[in-house]
């Protein structure tokens, strides 16, 4: 046992292999947050007055709020005046001219993930001809989408070109007053995606931030709004399995989904922001508010997330099941290693009759990481016949990490059926030795066992994404053997 513990320590202490620092020259807004900063951002984006007013009112509200302290995450106080809230995209001439100038370790990771060369260039910010490929692909996609009547554009463009839609829906799921970070986002959001799928339209392709032009530099305060009108269907992919870096430590995104009668939205995320080093230094703080509103009857919203990055993840993609017979789903894999902390889960708010929700959460903890599932299932008085099924499984690698499950269940309707199952297990030495004795090395064995543990969730991801996510699961746990 002593020997195993030693190996374990040695391996879990291993460095995040893909970390590096990028020197970026940007056009920063003045440091700190004030009404002037908010005006500066709005002005930079040529926004109409109503948008500026919305931002300012959120800012004023935010000043009266305090950070939430209930999550099981610990970090030094954030000085919100010691940060930049707007940075223009970096200039072309500063970008690497070819892949030769890109960190070889980063390229190695791309290789491991099997990312094609053209995408590697785009991901690592190579800003020359190579990107043309992607742009032309994106243009082709845009034409197909326009033909179907789907609007898919940066939210800044939507504010300018589709103000009626934005005014109607922005903040209608996550109000500006919702919570500290969402309110901050409402004041200073930089950019994000806007999707509108008109009545009866099945979006002809998976939409991905990857194909959204200008997507690469909007990470810090991203704002996304997706509307599926009556009977529409859309599948949206956010993020990327490749390690994502950002010079800003604080991230506070807001995502709002609206599904009208009979509409369905499938939202998949892979989050792999820099998690910090082996001593817990650095890494992204990811404070995200994601919520979907099943506004119409028979509508469905399904969240799938694979969270492997960030020093701190604070994230609860939720569903408001307002329409009768509406369905909410949450499938989650959260992997934490070294000193990473994740407090993540969902909220299923059952308002309509015969609403159904399903929660499958898989938490994997290694090193000294802390992984918390926090979920709320609330059945309102009128939600006759509501049903929920929750399954929370935690897997521990080693003996210095933690897994916590905090379910909140509130039922105000006697006809509701709520099921909650939870398990906590460790990768056993027996399982590992079984794999080793078959010739499978330790890291491959861990990846195999963990992927098996996550299978139900990985199955929910769109095909190509799932293959990459499987590899990512292995890479995230490299050197964390228990």
């Amino acid at each position: 046992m002593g020997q195993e513990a030693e190996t374990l320590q040695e391996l879990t202490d291993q460095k995040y292999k893909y970390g590096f620092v990028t020197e970026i020259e940007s056009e920063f807004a003045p440091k700190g947050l004030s009404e002037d900063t908010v005006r500066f951002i709005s002005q930079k984006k040529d926004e109409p007055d109503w948008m500026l007013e919305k931002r300012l009112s959120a800012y004023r509200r935010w000043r009266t709020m305090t950070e939430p302290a209930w999550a099981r995450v610990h970090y030094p106080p954030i000085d919100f005046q010691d940060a930049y809230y707007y940075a223009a995209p970096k200039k072309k001439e500063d970008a690497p001219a070819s892949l030769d100038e890109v960190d070889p370790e980063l390229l190695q990771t791309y290789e491991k993930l099997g990312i094609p060369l053209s995408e590697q260039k785009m991901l690592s910010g190579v800003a020359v001809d190579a990107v043309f490929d992607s742009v032309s692909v994106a243009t082709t996609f845009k034409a197909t989408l326009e033909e179907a009547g789907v609007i898919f554009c940066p939210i800044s463009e939507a504010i300018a070109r589709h103000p009626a839609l934005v005014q109607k829906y922005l903040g209608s799921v996550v109000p500006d007053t919702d919570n500290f970070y969402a309110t901050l986002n409402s004041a200073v959001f930089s950019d994000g995606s806007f999707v509108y799928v008109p009545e009866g339209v099945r979006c002809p392709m998976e939409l991905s931030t990857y194909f959204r032009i200008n997507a690469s530099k909007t990470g810090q305060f991203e704002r996304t709004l997706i509307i599926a009108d009556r009977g529409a269907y859309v599948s949206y992919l956010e993020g990327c399995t490749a390690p994502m870096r950002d010079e800003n430590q604080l991230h506070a995104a807001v995502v709002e989904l609206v599904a009208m009668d009979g509409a369905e939205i499938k939202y998949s995320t892979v989050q792999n922001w820099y998690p910090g080093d082996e001593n817990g230094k650095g890494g992204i703080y990811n404070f995200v508010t994601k919520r979907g509103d099943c506004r119409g009857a028979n509508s469905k919203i399904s969240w799938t997330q694979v969270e492997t990055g960030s020093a701190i993840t604070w994230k609860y993609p939720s569903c408001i099941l307002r329409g009768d017979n509406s369905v909410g789903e949450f499938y989650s894999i959260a992997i934490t290693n070294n000193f990473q902390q994740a407090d993540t889960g969902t909220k299923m708010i059952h308002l309509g009759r015969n609403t159904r929700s399903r929660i499958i959460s898989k938490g994997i903890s290694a090193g000294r990481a802390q992984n918390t599932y926090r979920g709320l299932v609330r059945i309102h008085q009128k939600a006759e016949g509501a049903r929920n099924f929750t399954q929370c499984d935690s897997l521990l690698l080693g003996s210095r990490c933690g897994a916590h499950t905090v379910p909140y269940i509130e039922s105000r309707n006697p006809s509701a059926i709520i099921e909650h199952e939870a398990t906590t297990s460790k990768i056993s030495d027996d399982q590992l030795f079984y794999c080793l004795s078959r010739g499978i090395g330790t890291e491959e064995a861990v990846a195999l066992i963990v992927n098996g543990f996550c299978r139900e969730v990985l199955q929910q991801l769109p095909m190509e994404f799932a293959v990459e996510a499987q590899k990512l699961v292995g890479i995230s746990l490299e050197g964390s053997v228990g």
Partner: protein
Amino acid sequence: MSPQALICNGSGPENVMLEIEDLHASVQGKEILKGLSLKICPGEVHAIMGPNGAGKSTTSYMLAGRDGYEVTSGQVRFNGEDLLSLKPEERAANGIFLAFQYPLEIPGVSTLNFLKTAVNAQAKLRGEPLLDAVQFMRLVRETAKLLNVSEEMLKRPLNVGFSGGEKKRNEVLQMALLKPALAILDETDSGLDIDALKLVAEGVNKLRSPSRSFLVITHYQRLLDYIVPDYVHILADGRIVRSGDKSLALRLEEQGYDALIGKAA
């Protein structure tokens, strides 16, 4: 016949596949193996029998390279090489296979996926070309058919919800795919009824060949009715106290361990 005097058919050292020499090994500071010696030549089937606590499972884990089994003195050579310096996965790639007494369950990982990962991991360690999905499927179908393993079983998560018999047949299937030089069967008969036992033994017998050796570890003689050994050794208190041919197992069954071990001492 003293254990040291027992020399395998080929007699020359170049023909010895496995040679365990005066091995002492401890688990958690407690000495379990106390001077174990054994030689196995290609194509031979050796059985090790012994009472509980004699060191049977320690022998198999020590050979497969399990963590926590510390060799304090003695040596083990496998095809002339020092086995003890190799990691477990390297031993597997070099041709050692351990069929587990209690095969482990791996939820969510299909048997097929596990088999393919293992076959290719070993090929990689040996510097051989990897099998693609089509080649692998062809191989696995042929092998499964030979051993009467259903395709349905291959699709199920590894050993999850398998009956005792299915688990052991799955071990034999793995053995058939991984083509080891030396297969160690650790109490393969435990938890099997007679029909399941016959089926598993049948599978093992199909895999016998002049170049493949078996080390069958068992508490009961019953298994040896179906997997007939060339040599039988009695392990007691960490060393082999008697060796003989298959009749030794029968005598053991009649007279019991105490009588035979007592005679040896």
